[in-house]
């Protein structure tokens, strides 16, 4: 790939166009917006994880002065639907799930919504909640995914098995694989529920506009939910409009419907604008979490380190509702064997309903969980074989043109060799240990897809137009959750059309006014909407250059657009102001705009049980290298060095890419060291940020990022997506570094000080016994 071309804007570390407004405090997030006559909404939620609803008495609540509506399940036009969760066509199998707006006869998880209130003030709405009397009959529930798989386990949802789906990956012959192994390492890994913990709690305002359109302005990653909301209200899709302002963090937690159905219903019923904002406690209790997994791994290798076999059983806790659990499991299945050449592979994956909080998308979407397992396994093998962790990986890494265990061929550059080498080198000499500390270094690499699974037939649309004065308008349904999703589109348009970033205005996130660009999930926006914007901008450029060529009597191929002028690539001083070309086009009735549709590769599936063949458009590869100091007596882990080396394809905005890698590293570090939603019998014991711990500035080490640009991504200018890949391998890198420091491995996250002290004690007792 040719990366020598000098770009004017692409690749430069320029400030994002939305940063200025945010720095000035001008950006209006969902909760910052108000309308005259606005009501306030609150949700009554179940205090039980599993119970029958005997009766609901809303009479006292309705009579409270200032209350304008109290709704229960029977007031919802379509309370239940089988949702295809973002698929545009039916896939069948386990990829669909029940979406229930309000609990009806039973509650299935603690926090499940039961009733909605709209009132003149938030205080009155809260008071009304207390006046709603619900009679419950607590039922036995099931709170462990392995227990829930048993045939005698209580059913979470009547009439269906707790096991949502079972997937398989089969390559070669697993018995043969282990028979040919000189060493076999078998371990069970466990990873917990964690929260997205975006700083902005869920929020939205809904109203009926002057044309009777149900309009929502909501913090969301998916404006396409307008369809699901319309279905809930039994309205045609074109009578519901969703607007997404800048989102204060999403990470997958705002990928499913959160407040939308509630505010739409209350606005529809009261005919007044209504705002609903979750408290932080409500957000922690009631929105989706990352899937906890039980990961049983068995890996075999020859004594020279070559992998021969990998067998794994993955069980994820889907919580009380299906949501995206089968999708997440698919991602885990595809990457379960890691980016390695393994002749014999057998993976069985299950996702299981329980009466815990429902689980769904969270940055990484099933890939970080298996990465923790397979990268720990690699170091376990290295230890058994007395090999350097770097060497055992290098000899087994897949190369471009080779296939994953599922048979998917890696068609684009695989940068594992060089990212691992560079990350490892950047670690440098081990820092000298002081006092009670032991210092360890560890590496872990990962691969994660960007772009949605190809059997979802993903598309994105973007509209680019040039105004009469040479300024540029982009309209795209992109939801901007902080990763520079809209800014990249502005950069691409500016680059292609020869204007500055300030000359481009992006209108985004409005189902009525911007072409739908698809979800801001799956690390797909730069890839999909970036390409769509590129295509649209190139069409406009073509029109302009053909006209310029006509005026200047030159071959359009010789012309370029730079700084609002048409110039000669070959250096002569022939030039033309851009505005002149624009006027000429307009006067000739030529289109100075284009709406482009970008299609990802498409594939149709005939069966879903066995995951095989191509699943993703491409993958991003990278390695984390970590140095830690472990206090052997207290178990406290301090991260001394953290290096992230990734092949980003092409960095569209250098600052943004670094920001994703730095932020992703700390997001993953939290997963590795301190984050856990403690849940017992369906009750969350970590209700606020006092109990659920995120890394503070005093916990985060300085992240060193090393960007490689192979140019071989499928995004615009050869870019790859980094939003999710950036955190994939951080937790196992830390676990491997801790192992290097203290010589004992911990098989479950997070690596808390107490766990470390416990394994050291057990190890010392074992040694003592000998």
């Amino acid at each position: 790939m040719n990366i020598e071309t000098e770009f004017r804007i692409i690749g430069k570390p320029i400030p994002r166009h939305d940063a200025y407004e945010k720095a000035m405090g001008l950006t209006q997030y969902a909760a910052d917006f108000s309308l005259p006559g606005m009501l306030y909404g609150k949700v009554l939620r179940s205090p039980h994880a599993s119970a029958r609803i005997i009766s609901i008495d809303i009479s006292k609540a309705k009579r409270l002065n200032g209350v304008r509506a109290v709704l229960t399940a029977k007031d919802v036009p379509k309370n239940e639907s089988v949702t295809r969760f973002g698929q545009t066509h039916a896939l069948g199998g386990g990829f669909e799930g029940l979406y229930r707006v309000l609990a009806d006869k039973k509650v299935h998880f603690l926090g499940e919504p039961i009733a909605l209130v709209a009132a003149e003030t938030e205080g009155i709405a809260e008071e009304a909640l207390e006046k709603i009397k619900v009679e419950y009959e607590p039922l036995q529930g099931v709170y462990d995914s392995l227990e829930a798989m048993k045939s005698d386990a209580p059913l979470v949802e009547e009439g269906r098995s707790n096991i949502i789906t079972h997937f398989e990956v089969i390559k070669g012959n697993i018995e043969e694989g282990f028979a040919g192994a000189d060493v076999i390492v078998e371990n069970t890994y466990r990873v917990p529920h964690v929260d997205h913990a975006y700083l902005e709690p869920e929020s939205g305002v809904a109203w009926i506009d002057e044309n009777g359109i149900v309009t929502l302005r909501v913090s969301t990653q998916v404006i396409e939910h307008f369809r699901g909301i319309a279905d809930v209200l039994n309205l045609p899709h074109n009578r519901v409009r969703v607007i997404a302002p800048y989102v204060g963090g999403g990470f997958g937690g705002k990928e499913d419907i959160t407040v939308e159905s509630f505010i739409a219903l209350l606005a529809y019923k009261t005919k007044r604008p209504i705002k609903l904002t979750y408290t932080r406690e409500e957000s922690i209790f009631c929105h989706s979490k990352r899937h906890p997994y039980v990961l049983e791994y068995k890996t075999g290798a020859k004594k020279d380190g070559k992998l021969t076999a990998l067998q794994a059983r993955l069980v994820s806790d889907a919580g009380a509702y299906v949501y995206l659990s089968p999708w997440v499991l698919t991602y885990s299945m595809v990457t379960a064997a890691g980016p390695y050449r393994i002749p014999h592979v057998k993976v069985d994956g299950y996702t299981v309903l329980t009466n815990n909080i429902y689980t769904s998308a969270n940055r990484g979407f099933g890939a970080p969980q298996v990465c923790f397992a397979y990268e720990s396994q690699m170091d376990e093998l290295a230890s058994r074989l007395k090999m350097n962790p770097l060497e055992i990986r290098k000899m087994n890494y897949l190369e471009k043109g080779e296939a994953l265990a599922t048979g998917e061929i890696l068609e684009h550059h695989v940068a594992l060799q060089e990212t691992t080498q560079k990350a490892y080198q950047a670690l440098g000499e081990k820092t000298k240990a002081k006092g009670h500390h032991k210092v360890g270094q560890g590496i872990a690499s990962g691969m994660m897809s960007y772009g949605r699974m190809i059997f979802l037939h993903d598309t994105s649309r973007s509209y680019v137009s040039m105004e009469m004065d040479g300024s540029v308008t982009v309209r795209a349904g992109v939801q901007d959750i902080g990763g520079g999703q809209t800014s990249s589109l502005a950069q691409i348009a500016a680059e292609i059309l020869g204007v500055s970033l300030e000359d481009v205005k992006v209108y985004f996130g409005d189902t009525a006014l911007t072409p739908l660009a698809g979800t801001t999930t799956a690390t797909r926006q730069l890839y999909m909407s970036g390409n769509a914007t590129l295509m649209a901008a190139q069409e406009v450029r073509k029109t302009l250059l053909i006209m310029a060529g006509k005026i200047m009597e030159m071959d359009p191929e010789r012309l370029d657009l730079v700084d609002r002028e048409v110039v000669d690539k070959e250096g002569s001083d022939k030039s033309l102001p851009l505005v002149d070309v624009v006027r000429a086009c307009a006067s000739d009735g030529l289109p100075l705009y284009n709406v482009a549709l970008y299609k990802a590769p498409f594939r149709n599936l005939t069966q879903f049980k066995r995951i095989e063949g191509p699943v993703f458009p491409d993958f991003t590869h990278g390695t984390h290298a970590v140095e830690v100091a472990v206090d052997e007596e207290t178990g406290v882990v301090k991260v001394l060095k953290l290096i992230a080396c990734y092949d980003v394809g092409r960095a569209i905005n250098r600052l943004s890419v670094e920001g994703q890698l730095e932020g992703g590293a700390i997001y993953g570090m939290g997963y590795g060291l301190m984050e856990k939603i403690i849940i017992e019998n369906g009750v969350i014991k970590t209700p606020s940020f006092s109990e659920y711990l995120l890394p503070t500035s005093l916990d985060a080490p300085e992240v060193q990022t090393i960007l490689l640009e192979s140019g071989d991504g499928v995004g615009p200018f050869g870019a790859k997506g980094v939003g999710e890949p950036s955190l994939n391998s951080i937790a196992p890198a830390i676990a491997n570094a801790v192992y290097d420091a203290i010589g004992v491995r911990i098989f479950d996250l997070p690596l808390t000080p107490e766990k470390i002290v416990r394994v050291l004690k057990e190890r010392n007792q074992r040694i003592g016994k000998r």
Partner: protein
Amino acid sequence: MKKQKTYLLEIILNGEWKKVEVEPQETLLYVLREKFGHTEVKEGCGKGDCGACAILLNGKPVNSCLTLALQADGQTVVTLKGIGTPEKPHPLQESFVKKGAIQCGFCTAGMIVTAKGLLDKNPQPSKDEIQKAISGNLCRCTGYKKIIEAIEEAAQKLQRTMNNKR
């Protein structure tokens, strides 16, 4: 419904005297957002665990969610919009933009307020001092690195401006 008793609150908000009737349990955060329209002050957690609501009370950064509005009566309150405006941006705002220290932006207002409080007291903070000063401001997007770099750069810029004035 019982009418809640209200009290007159008078504060110097971003340099101007402002007054409004408030209820005793209303926090400064609530009043700033809902009664004075300063929605740049954010609620992230409502109980002092995240710093998104930080404002300067008599020059000191505090969580406005942990301060009753009436406790600020007669005192000076400065929010992000009192630190810099589009007409006259503060070096902190400029360096946050320039250094890529803003992703989703939700922590930004509180972060800049806290940084301003720091630089007012300690114009040349070390990296450690910056890290400590913002340890009550959570960020989920950036990993803090570019935020710290932005504060360092703003401090240097302010020092240069001070030195030039001499």
